[in-house]
């Protein structure tokens, strides 16, 4: 029929930096059908991890699965390898890893929320989000030496230590960031036009979230109490004051708000961790080759990231399998589009904070 318009959204599109292709069929801008193609970023990382790299180098490859959650990917792998090798890390290492992981979450969440604002046509809010996010990246740079791809995790430890000056600086910056994030959160919470664009849009109900097995902030925004940090012991979250953040609305706005709540929780955790940093070495010795199989669940910024690794006692791992949160979220995302306006589609996609390079690997 002549009233249909097929709209391609991606792979090269300004609203999503990653190559992903949605093909919408719209009638009067209302989406009636959608095709999703997430395979553009497939590079064959799982294959490379078991053929080309030694087990003690794989984390550098896995960090490049995704720039946003590089630390969680590398972390998950290393937690697994440490399990296989039987390495016991000390408290200081755990705390340092936690700080960096949470800082990573902060900058990822802030950018994700900013990006939602950007695709809603709220450029100013995006700029403010990016501006405040710089605090987090500056801290990361100070700790790890790089802004985005910081190969901080190493088997048995971390790559750099935190000095007293650093701690002081981090403390100041985090406090500053906390004030700013609260300000931003208030903006997202109360802004009228942003609310028009996001409230009640792309609602994932509790039942849907459960039925489609969603992960991460999408699940939590629908009231599903699930978080790998809560359920799987990979870093000492209970000690530093972790709180599970949920909401019940399940729409685009709720997802943004959940992210803000998590950012604030992360800041609190980091502040606690930085100020109560235990003494100790930053690296423990490890010996041998990984043998046996194990699985790891970690909470990436986008949700639960699941690793299965298997070693056979050689330098090369036998299996590295990754299941990432965005992949779990794509089915419900498809479901949401049908019946919503094309002008809301971008906000819906970006509110899922999709990470296609994780998804396709």
């Amino acid at each position, binding site marked *: 029929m002549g009233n249909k318009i097929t709209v391609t959204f991606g*792979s*090269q*599109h*300004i*609203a999503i*930096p*990653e*190559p992903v292709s949605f093909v919408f069929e719209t009638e009067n801008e209302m989406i009636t059908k959608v095709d999703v193609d997430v*395979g*553009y*970023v*497939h*590079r*064959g*990382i799982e*294959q*490379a991890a078991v053929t*080309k790299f030694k087990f003690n180098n794989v984390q*550098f*490859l896995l*960090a*490049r*699965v*995704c*720039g*946003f959650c*590089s630390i969680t990917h590398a972390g998950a792998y290393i937690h697994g390898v440490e399990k296989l090798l039987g390495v016991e890390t000390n408290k200081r290492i755990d705390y340092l890893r936690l700080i960096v992981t949470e800082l990573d979450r902060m900058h990822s969440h802030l*950018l994700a929320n900013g*990006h939602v604002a950007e695709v809603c046509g709220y450029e100013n809010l995006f*700029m*403010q989000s*990016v*501006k405040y*996010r*710089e605090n987090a*990246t500056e801290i990361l740079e100070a700790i790890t030496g*790089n*802004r*985005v*791809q910081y190969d901080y995790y190493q088997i048995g430890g971390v790559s750099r230590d935190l000095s007293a000056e650093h701690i002081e600086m981090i403390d100041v910056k985090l406090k500053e960031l906390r004030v700013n994030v609260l300000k931003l959160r208030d903006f997202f919470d109360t802004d009228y036009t942003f609310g028009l664009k996001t409230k009640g849009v792309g609602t994932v109900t509790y039942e849907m979230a459960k039925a489609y097995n969603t992960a991460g902030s999408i699940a939590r925004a629908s009231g599903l109490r699930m978080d790998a940090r809560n359920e799987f012991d990979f870093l000492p979250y209970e000690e530093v004051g972790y709180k599970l953040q949920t909401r019940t609305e399940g729409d685009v706005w709720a997802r943004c708000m959940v992210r803000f709540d998590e950012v604030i929780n992360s800041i609190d955790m980091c502040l606690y961790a930085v100020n109560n940093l235990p003494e100790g070495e930053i690296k423990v010795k490890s010996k041998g080759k990984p043998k046996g199989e194990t699985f790891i669940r970690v909470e990436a910024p986008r949700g639960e990231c699941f690793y299965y690794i298997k070693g056979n006692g050689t330098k090369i791992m036998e299996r590295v399998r990754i299941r990432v949160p965005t992949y779990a979220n794509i089915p419900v995302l498809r479901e949401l589009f049908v019946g919503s306006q094309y002008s809301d589609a971008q906000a819906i996609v970006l509110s899922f904070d999709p*990470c296609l*390079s994780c998804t*396709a690997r």
Partner: protein
Amino acid sequence: MNDLRAKSPWITHYNTGGCNGCDIEILAALGPKFDIERFGMLNRGNPKQSDILLVTGPVTLRCRDVLRRVWLEMPEPKVVVAMGSCTHGGGVFRHLYHTENGIDGIVPVDVWIPGCTPRIEAIIDGLIEGVEIWKNKTKEKEYMVGHSEKLLEKIGVLND
């Protein structure tokens, strides 16, 4: 005139299957702290109105033809800035079964920005370098690497 022109480079960014790290930094470069609009740079997102193609990623096979099309849609004079290690021959993804080992086999590259991830200062520097090259380019038509009618037909730009 070319000096005036150099003050207005518009950017199209295409991620050919990288890890997002570079894309994050590009977004950050647009932000208030680095603000590349100082140099008149805008992220247009539309190749038809852009001058600089900022490519990240190691070029997966799926993205290869898209990259070619996007490049073809840009009117000359144009420059290609390859950002990040992956674009330089694949980086950590070199010789994986689904990557093309960098973009220089696909489109002609003018500037390479090294690093994984490049620092924003490096990005800005690379872009400025690109602008310097772009300033001296002319309207003359450029051709793709391996340009042929057959290739054009294969990527579907001969007849739409």
